């Protein structure tokens, strides 16, 4: 055992001087939410770091929908799941087809499609939301889950196509040539060669689209309004309409709502970060 030198201690101290504030800054709002979720109503406002009587009663109330604000909790939870999964599936379908066409089939004008798609991200989200709301009205989709699903597909697809194109450019051309020599048609090429090889990227993109749709607030809030049609974040926002809204229940619901994306993120972290990093180095 060698004792650390003074210099090493200094470096470590300096790092801690950054690390501790970063830790507090990151965790305080999240911990505050968690604290509310496990505190009985009268404890929640005491300003203690740990409640005197931690309880899971708030979760019980939420799960049994025992409050006016929570009367549609399960159906809203279900709406969130359906919309997230549908947006994820549809994004995967559309983006994989487009990436295959652009990268493997070299469709004429493919580069243009790619650039146009990325242009979507140069329109600030809230700016697109205003005309999008009216457009959905014109299409007769307002208050229909499809409006939110399609809006999410619109926003998720460009990134999805870009990442998938990047990944499929790396697959050797000889693969396609060999398959074609053996008499594979293009649908077979897609199904039997392309999709299996692209699996890791497809998992990442599917996860990305699901998280995007699950986390979305603004579009959900604009496009859906009926209590039994809205998703969880919109329901959380509706808590704010009343002054006497039960904070501890709001935070409990929020905590339940935030858990799946956090869990999914950590489960798929390897894929997600890989996809992001590929983008960063390119730019």
């Amino acid at each position, binding site marked *: 055992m060698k004792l650390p030198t003074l210099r090493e201690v200094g470096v470590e101290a300096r790092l801690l001087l950054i690390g501790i504030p970063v*830790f507090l800054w990151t965790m305080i709002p999240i911990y505050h939410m968690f604290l509310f979720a496990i505190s009985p109503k009268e404890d929640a406002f005491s300003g203690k770091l740990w409640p005197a009587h931690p309880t899971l009663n708030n979760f019980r109330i939420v799960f049994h929908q025992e409050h006016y604000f929570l009367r549609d909790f399960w159906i809203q939870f279900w709406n969130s799941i359906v919309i997230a999964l549908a947006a994820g599936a549809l994004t995967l379908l559309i983006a994989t087809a487009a990436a295959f066409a652009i990268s493997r089939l070299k469709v004429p004008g493919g580069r243009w499609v790619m650039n146009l798609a990325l242009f979507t991200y140069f329109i600030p989200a809230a700016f697109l939301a205003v005309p999008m709301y009216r457009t959905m009205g014109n299409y007769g989709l307002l208050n229909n889950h499809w409006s939110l699903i399609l809006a999410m597909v619109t926003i998720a697809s460009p990134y999805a196509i870009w990442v998938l194109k990047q990944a499929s450019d790396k697959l050797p051309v000889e693969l396609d040539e060999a398959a074609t020599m053996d008499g594979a048609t293009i649908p077979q090429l897609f199904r039997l060669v392309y999709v299996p090889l692209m699996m890791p990227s497809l998992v990442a993109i599917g996860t990305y689209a699901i998280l995007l749709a699950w*986390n979305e607030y603004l579009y959900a809030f604009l496009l859906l309004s009926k209590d039994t049609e809205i998703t969880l974040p919109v329901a959380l926002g509706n808590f704010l309409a009343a002054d006497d809204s039960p904070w501890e229940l709001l935070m409990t619901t929020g905590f339940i709502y935030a858990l799946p994306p956090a869990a999914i993120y950590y489960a798929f972290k390897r894929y997600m970060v890989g996809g992001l990093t590929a983008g960063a180095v390119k730019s």
Partner: protein
Amino acid sequence: MAITISGDQAMPGPPLSARLTTPQVWGIVLVAPYLLVFLAFVVYPVGYGLWLARHPASYVALYHDPIFARAAVNTLIFLLVGINLKMMIALLLSGFFAQQRPWIKWLSVLFILPWAVPSIPTILSVRFMFNPEWGVVNTLIFKLTGDDGPNWLNDPTVALSMAIGVHIWKSLPFWTLILMTGRLAISHDLYEAAEVDGASRTQKFRFITWPSMQALYLTCTLLSMIWTLGDFNSVYLLTGGGPADLTHVLATLGIRYLRLDQLSLAMASIVCALPFVLPLIYFMMKRLSR
């Protein structure tokens, strides 16, 4: 592909299907769903929105609406202060997280949380923390000093600063991650050579890190500006635009007009931001197409 459509009317080329190879036909079929989505949900809304914003009367109305002027100023403050602060912190932290230490690795796992979890519960959590009557912050201030804490979200300046803070809290992990990848891509040999030459920490940053990160940093800043213009949640969920509509930014103002059924005003307020957005888009396009 030698046959092109010239002015020759008498001898039309073979039909389109004959000039395309099978893969190309399939390519068009496969790219079509996305193009349909793009046309229906990007091109049409943008065109329709611009068409709705065509009346000069809307701009006159905006000009006379004090909330609009305030929102425009707020947006500018939000962008200039918020983004520069955020990117500078991200640059600093990217160096911190690039250190190889087990505890820093653990911290980085936690650090990503604000970005990974949805914004509404966490922003509402911050909102409750700063509630003047029951919030934890003022409860603590009362316990420690016996005085009532400030009425945080009721002061427009404080409220806007806090909205900026929430925005930074939410998006800092993402930009730190991006800048960290840029930093890790710098060859380690350069630092070793500098070490041999006795370069100080500041010199290493100035002559190695910064020159190699400059382009990425600028791209990130521009992109973040465009995205932050569309940041509705940070302001809406924290302050709701209040007190007295003094903390609106263009993103929340457009939605506010929309909720008040003044669609042409909503679009006009967005069009007013275009002189600012278009140069950003132009620079981004130029950078990305290089």
